[in-house]
């Protein structure tokens, strides 16, 4: 039973959600909205599991004096530092001027922006070490990348200023984006849609059940 009930739930719910697209009649018309509400509520409940897990692991590290246990203290402290004003502040917890919004603006934002920004360095390092014209495929990848990188900044047109209009780097970059690039995207999109249909069908039919613990 422990195995059958979840499979049954998955199958029935999946089929209903496929059908709702074709049935405008109540209650099918409401399914989409309900699901979005339910999912966000479940996710909000589930984050308790995650947060407790994070605390547990950090506490274990501290208790066992494992490597870098000091940082585990920092994790717990910073978690509490934002959670306490977050809950203590009531509904207006993130209005301008609150400590929560201060933390958001001056701690959270710079940290997440910088994490994003150091990608720039990794991109360059990857270009130097990994992007090799090993074969025709890789060469095409690099050539397309060149067109786009040069064509999308003013320098590109500076380099090809002598070419007639329509044949400058920015035009070529535009052509690559609009045609071969778009064609590739489209093939990938169609493939993904079909892969999704088949994966979803396998899940709904209960053939694919490893997410619920295998056969």
């Amino acid at each position: 039973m422990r195995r059958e009930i979840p499979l049954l739930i998955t199958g029935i719910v999946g089929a209903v959600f496929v059908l709702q697209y074709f049935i405008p009649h109540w209650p099918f018309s409401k399914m989409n909205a309900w699901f979005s509400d339910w999912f966000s509520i479940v996710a909000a409940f589930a984050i308790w599991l995650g947060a407790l897990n994070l605390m547990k692991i950090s506490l274990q590290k501290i208790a066992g004096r494992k490597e870098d246990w000091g940082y585990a203290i920092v994790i717990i402290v910073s978690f509490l530092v934002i959670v306490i004003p977050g809950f203590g502040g009531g509904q207006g917890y993130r209005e301008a001027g609150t400590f929560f919004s201060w933390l958001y603006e001056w701690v959270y934002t710079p940290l997440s922006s910088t994490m994003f920004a150091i990608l720039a360095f990794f991109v360059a390092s990857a270009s130097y070490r990994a992007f090799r014209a090993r074969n025709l495929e890789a060469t095409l990848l690099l050539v397309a990348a060149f067109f786009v990188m040069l064509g999308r900044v003013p320098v590109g047109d500076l380099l090809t200023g002598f070419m007639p209009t329509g044949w400058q780097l920015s035009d070529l970059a535009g052509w690559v984006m609009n045609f071969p690039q778009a064609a590739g995207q489209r093939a990938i999109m169609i493939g993904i849609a079909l892969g999704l249909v088949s994966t979803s069908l396998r899940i709904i039919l209960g053939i694919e059940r490893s997410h619920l613990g295998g056969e």
Partner: protein
Amino acid sequence: MRCRQPGHTPLLLLALILLFVSTDVCVAQSEPDPAGSLMADTARVTVAPPTSVIVTDHKYDNGDALELSWVPSIDDRIPGGKVVRYQVYRSVNEGEYLPIQELLPGSNFFLDESLHRDSVYSYYVTAYSRNDSAMSVATAPVSPQREWLHVDRAWLFVIALIISLAVFYFIRAARKGEDLFIRKIAGLEAVDEAIGRATEMGRPILYIPGILDMDDVQTLAAITILGRVARTVADYEIQVRMPVSRSLVMTAARETIKTAYQTAGRPDSYSDDMVQYVTDEQFGYVAAVDGIMVREKPATVFLLGAFFAESLILAETGNSINAIQIAGTARPAQLPFFIAACDFTLIGEELFAASAYLSGEPKQLGSLKGQDVGKFIAMVVIIIGVIAATLAQAWEVPFMQQVYDALTFVFSTQ
């Protein structure tokens, strides 16, 4: 003001005048007309009313919408004409008419939603100039209807059904023992090898299921592949490390690995600590995973699921610690980095095929055949469609025009 509305005329007229006055004030506030206010022009700018106001049921809904359409006032046929706005009035159950919607000049359509199918509604539309207005004839009372089937989507249903039936058919055929050929997918052939390498080196395997939640199918695919990988891993004595960024994914992954270990007959080797929640925040998560990579130096890294910007950091860091990396995602923007920095990459559809392929079970492989039927349909339709469209448009072949129109209609989704 001309009023052709039967019954309740005096009351209605009063109500209308009041409404007109109040809405006019409101308009004057919200849309100051510099020309008008400067000239203090009192000359009446008369307008013709909108005509042919028709109300019809909005098709294929739960009986809560009506469509109203009309021919714009003849003073609104040219841009910058005399009409400054339209106002839609509605009466519920033959009650009084109330203004419900203001529209820009040039409008000829209004969709009225959130209605009740037990009530009857009638409408009229008034055109306003700067200081005059003219109302249309009111429509007959109508109730919205609700339908059981979305007929416009019938073709989508049919095509989805054909592909689904193909999937069923091949799954059945496989069950009956028919031999189905599936070509080799390099990235998946390498999974066992990659796990073997970790065993030899005595280092852990790192499994990253992307950063989206369980409501993304790429994550589902990653979790199903995890099921296969965990089965193999359970047979060897290697450590699996799986930091995740969503609590639901943590739950699902634990469940998956646990069962894999049970099936392999070593439930004792399983521990909840294999899967660990870090944070929902994208880069907080990446920072932590990077730390794990640098400090624990896993021999094999799986990056399967929905990835965004972090793909590059993860793949580069994995590369720098010389791990074997098998990556896969359906997000085209992240694929170049996986292709450059990982040993094997599953592109788009291959990610979804992976769990079926790895299972090696005939019925799972059958579903891949079904997918191919879908691709075949797409290819045939595209070729026929383009030929038909080209012949029809360039050389005026009527039959081809019909084919072209038919295909465009069948594949339209609105």
